[in-house]
Each structure stands twice: as structure tokens, then as C-alpha cells.
């Protein structure tokens, strides 16, 4: 209905294979970026930044990472949080032990370290598939957290086993306010999301999906499944690693390994299920959903509480949250296995064909 595609014809493959071939979409995207980069920083409250926007962006990044591995390459992983932890602790140690290293470089270093670990734990995918692999990633989850807890070096022998992220300084500018931290995160996430989209629509992305959909056929046309999978593990872990570092540096500040527990891994998995497997958009939608849902729930619970004087204990609220998550996962897997992203896509198609139904 809003779409007016007549006259938008393409005279080169360049134009035809763009990320947003339709003009109206390009405009919409620019609008979103404008809001994110300009409007929000002007209007949003510190609470909005540090309680919603920042975690939303960071988790989106992690979700995109997991989506590359699970959604695109079809390798189920239950250890996303562990790789985030690697990223966080590695970055911390880079800043700590490499004098004068720019913090951004430290993030990249953290990502690369996570990628390395990712490859190691991806090796089993040489021989094993499906749940077996999921279990391997669980092993990563437990082993890595254990190592970070038990081996003092990682926490610089902090007595209580926590690390305190160093301040973010880029070109001498201190990013210490919620707003400035938000902008850092936003910038990084935007760039990496774009990169993810490029990989997904490029040769490597096709290889991932090929391995996911029909690995024998993939082999027969010359794709090396092993290589493709390890790439997926590496890239995915890199994304998670950077996300983990941001999680520590611009969200939590002081972090213990337990912050990256199995529970977080599951949440990220939920994000891509709800958001939509095998799409970059899905990462953002899922993350938004999972970040906002608890807030909505607790607000409604409190509202009920106040109006009906039920005096509901807080534990109930949190359990309610858990329940709803569980139920939602099942709901989405049953009703719309392709998640919010698909719903978005369908409604978009409808708009393009309006007033026709199909």
C-alpha cells in the first residue's frame, strides 16, 4: 500500500543484488538509522539507554552471532554465552596486559580469541551432528565458565573472581555516560550487522545454508562442509565475543563469569527462535522481544498487584517470566517456526500487493 514500485527497474546486477532493492525500504532504513543515531540520543533518558537500548543492541549482536551458526549453518549451539565470556575476559586482559592498546582493538582481540575457542569447540562438528553437537557446545559452556572461575590469571587474581571493565576511551574521548556508551555500542552493532548481512548473501553464506539444507549435495558441488562449519563457528563466536566484551564494558561494568551462564545462552537461543532463524533482522526482533517482555510482564504484574491487592511476591513475577518464555518458544515453534522476521516479511509482501490479497 505504501509501496510504489512502478518504474523501479534495475539495469545492472549491482543494483539488482542490493540489500534493499526497493526504494521505499531504503528510505525506511535510513529513517531507522536517523532515529537511532540522532533522535534517540537527543531525547532518551539514561534509564532507557542503560536498561533497554544498550542490552537490546548487545544481545542483538550476540543473537546475530548465534544465528550465523544455528540459523544459517544449521549447527545448534547452547554455548553462546560462554563465547561472550571469552570475549569479555580476553578484552579485559588485552587492555590490562597490553600497554596502550586501544579499547576497540581490545574488543576485536576479544572477538578473535572467542573465534579461536569457537573453532576448537567446533572441531567435533567434523564428525557429529544435531544433538550430539549441541552437547559439545554445552561442554564449552561448562568448561569455559569453570576455567574462568578457577584460573585466577583471567581475573587478574581478583579475590572475588570478578573483573571490572576498564573505561572506554577512544581517541582520548571518555565514553562514560549512558548516552555515549550507547553510541559506541550502536556504531559497532550497525557495522557488524551490515557485515553479517553481506556474508549471509555472499558465497560463504550460501555455503553455510547449503551445508544446513543438504550437506551431501553441498559436498558434491565442491563445498567443504568442514570448512564451512568451522567458518561458521569462528564468525559466530567472534560476534558473540565482541557482544560479550560490550556486555562487560558498556552494560555491566563489573562482571563475574556467572553473568554468562547457561541461562543467558538459552535466552540468546530463544531470541533467534522468536526472532527468526537464518535472518539478520531476526536477531534484532528477537532481542527486542526478550529484552522488553520481562519489563512488560513485571509492569503488568505490579499493576495487577496494586489494583487487586494480591501482594504477589517478586519471585512469582520472575517465575511467570520464565513460564511465558517457555510457552512462547513452544508457541513460535508450532505456529510460526520462522519467527517474527517471517511475520514481518509476509506483512511486507501484503503491503506491496495491496489492494490485492496475493
Amino acid at each position, binding site marked *: 500500500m505504501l509501496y510504489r514500485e512502478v518504474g523501479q527497474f534495475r*539495469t*545492472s*546486477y*549491482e543494483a*539488482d*543484488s542490493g540489500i534493499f532493492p526497493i526504494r521505499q525500504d531504503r528510505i525506511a532504513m535510513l529513517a531507522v538509522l536517523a532515529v537511532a543515531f540522532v533522535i534517540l540520543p537527543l531525547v532518551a533518558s539514561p534509564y532507557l539507554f542503560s536498561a533497554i537500548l544498550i542490552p537490546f543492541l548487545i544481545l542483538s549482536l550476540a543473537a546475530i552471532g548465534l544465528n550465523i551458526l544455528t540459523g544459517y549453518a544449521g549447527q545448534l549451539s547452547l554455548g553462546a554465552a560462554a563465547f561472550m565470556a571469552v570475549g569479555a575476559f580476553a578484552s579485559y586482559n588485552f587492555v590490562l596486559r597490553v600497554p596502550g592498546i586501544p579499547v576497540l582493538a581490545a574488543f576485536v582481540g576479544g572477538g578473535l580469541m572467542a573465534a579461536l575457542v569457537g573453532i576448537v569447540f567446533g572441531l567435533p562438528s567434523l564428525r557429529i551432528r544435531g544433538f550430539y553437537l549441541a552437547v559439545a557446545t554445552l561442554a564449552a559452556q561448562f568448561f569455559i565458565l569453570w576455567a574462568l572461575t578457577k584460573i585466577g590469571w583471567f581475573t587478574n587474581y581478583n579475590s572475588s573472581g570478578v573483573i571490572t571493565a576498564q573505561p572506554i576511551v577512544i581517541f582520548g574521548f571518555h565514553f562514560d555516560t549512558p548516552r555515549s556508551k550507547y553510541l559506541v555500542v550502536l556504531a559497532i552493532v550497525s557495522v557488524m550487522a551490515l*557485515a*553479517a548481512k*553481506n*556474508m549471509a548473501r*555472499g*558465497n*560463504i553464506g*550460501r*555455503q553455510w*545454508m*547449503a551445508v*544446513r*539444507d*543438504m550437506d*551431501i*549435495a*553441498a*559436498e*558434491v*558441488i*565442491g*563445498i*567443504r562442509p568442514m570448512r564451512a562449519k568451522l*567458518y561458521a563457528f569462528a*564468525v559466530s563466536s567472534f560476534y558473540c565475543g565482541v557482544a560479550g566484551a560490550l556486555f562487560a564494558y558498556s552494560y555491566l561494568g563489573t562482571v563475574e563469569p556467572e553473568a554468562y551462564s547457561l541461562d543467558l545462552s538459552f535466552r540468546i537461543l530463544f531470541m533467534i527462535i522468536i526472532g527468526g532463524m*537464518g535472518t539478520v533482522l531476526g536477531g534484532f526482533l528477537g532481542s527486542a522481544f526478550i529484552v522488553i517482555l520481562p519489563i512488560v510482564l513485571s509492569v503488568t504484574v505490579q499493576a495487577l498487584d496494586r489494583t487487586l491487592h494480591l501482594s504477589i511476591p517478586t519471585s512469582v513475577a520472575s517465575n511467570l517470566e520464565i513460564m511465558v518464555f517457555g510457552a512462547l518458544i513452544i508457541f513460535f515453534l508450532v505456529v510460526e517456526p520462522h519467527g517474527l522476521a517471517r511475520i514481518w516479511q509476509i506483512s511486507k509482501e501484503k503491503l506491496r500487493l495491496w489492494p490485492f490479497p496475493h
Partner: protein
Amino acid sequence: MMRDSPQAAAGGAGAFDGGTTDRALGDVLLRVENISLRFGGVHALTDIGFEVREHEVLAIIGPNGAGKSSMLNVINGVYHPQQGTITFRGKARRHMSTHDAAAAGIARTFQNIALFKGMTVLDNIMTGRNLRMRAGLLAQALYFGPARREELEHRAFVEQIIDFLEIQAYRRTPVGRLPYGLQKRVDLGRALAMEPKLLLLDEPMAGMNLEEKADMCRFVLDVNEQFGTTIVLIEHDMSVVMEISDRVVVLDYGRKIADGAPDAVRSDPAVIAAYLGIVH
């Protein structure tokens, strides 16, 4: 097929403009010698040997379970025979690895279509170009320089195939939504995208109606004629086999029972015996 426009000229469209026209059989392209393949106790193939010459269309026929598919799987390295050698383009191997086979120029289609269901027709065929794409991960992530150029060039080539197979209307359709006959075409397209020297077709016409079969026959012959591609196919429909193949190899219970020109094979008593009650 090529236009002299700036865009259309892009991409290694090599085989598609001009291409070889001669159907004169060249030298031996593929030779398999005393191949034997076992699964546990089951003898899938026993001591099979035959040759395929360049530009030839060779049909492998035989009753169900005669080991036809296994034979293809051996040639392109999905199965590894316990015994025998495979010589392709002069290079002898104990057995192929799927990757070597692909890299050496062997492509194939599958009996029960093995397309990448989640991907569009275009992407499915693009995967066939993966061996020719060199750009590194970073270049792809930034979609700059080599990565972009490569992507566009190969797109141009793939469009030639889409045009050749007359599936322009479905370019952006996820293959899962296509009717069976069209999926078979896409499967062929993906194989063609590899610009193979040797093309293995596993029952390309299985489950098709007459019209679809006719189309597929035309495509197979056009491929062979226009690009000089050597073709080995498995087919049940004898009329098809007789129509398009230069030579026929007959398998029965994993053994070769005949090898020769279609008519000769048709009248071979051993073949008739094997087929009794199966064909006609």
C-alpha cells in the same frame, strides 16, 4: 544468447557464447576399472569397468537395485569402492573424494532432488560457482573489491543458465515452493553452473509427465551439443535412453552385463533376460 550490451558481456560467460559445436567423440575422458563396492556383506558393485569418451552421452540402465546410483556415487566420490581405479582426465585414483571430483569437473544431479530447500533458485544455482569464487571472508563481509566483482560476474553467468533452462520467472522463488519438474531443472542448473567436463544425471526424468520429459530431453541434448559436455545418465524410460544416448551400459545385480550402442544392447539376450517383465 549474448547481447552486445555493456552489462551482458560481464562474467566468464565462456561456454555460453559460441561454445563447441562438434559432436565428434574425443578421447577417453573417464575410465573405471574393476570397481567393487560393498556395504558390510552386501555387494553393491562387483568388478565393474567401462569408459566414457568426450562429448559422449552414456546411459547406465538396469533393474532396480542393480547398483546404478552406487556407480555414480563411486564416480563422484560419495562412496569409496573397496577395489578398482577411477581415471578421470588422465589422472588415476583409487577413489575420488567428493571435493576432488567436483574440482576436477564432475557435476551431478540427484535422483530424489537434493536442492537447498531454504534458498532461492538463484542462490541454489549460484552455489554451483563456489569453487570459482576466491574472495576472502573479510572481503565478503565488507562486500568490497574482489568480493563484489566476483559476485556480480558469477551472477551474470548464472543468469545465462537461468535463461538457458527457461526459469526466468522463478529466479527469486525458494525452490521448496517449485513444482517437481522445475526443481529438477534447477538441480540441473546447479550442476551446469560448475561448467562440468562430465555431468552425471541420476534419473533426470523420473516422475515427470511426458511434456516435462520432452523438455528435459531437449535440455540434456542442448547441454551436450552446445557446451560439448560429456554426460552419463541413469534412466528407466527406454524410449528416452534410445533417443538421447550414444552408448548404453547395462548393470544387473551389481555386474555389467552389456555395453554398446543402444540398438545392439536392446537386442542383447542377456539384457532382455534381466529386464524380462520390467520394460515394455
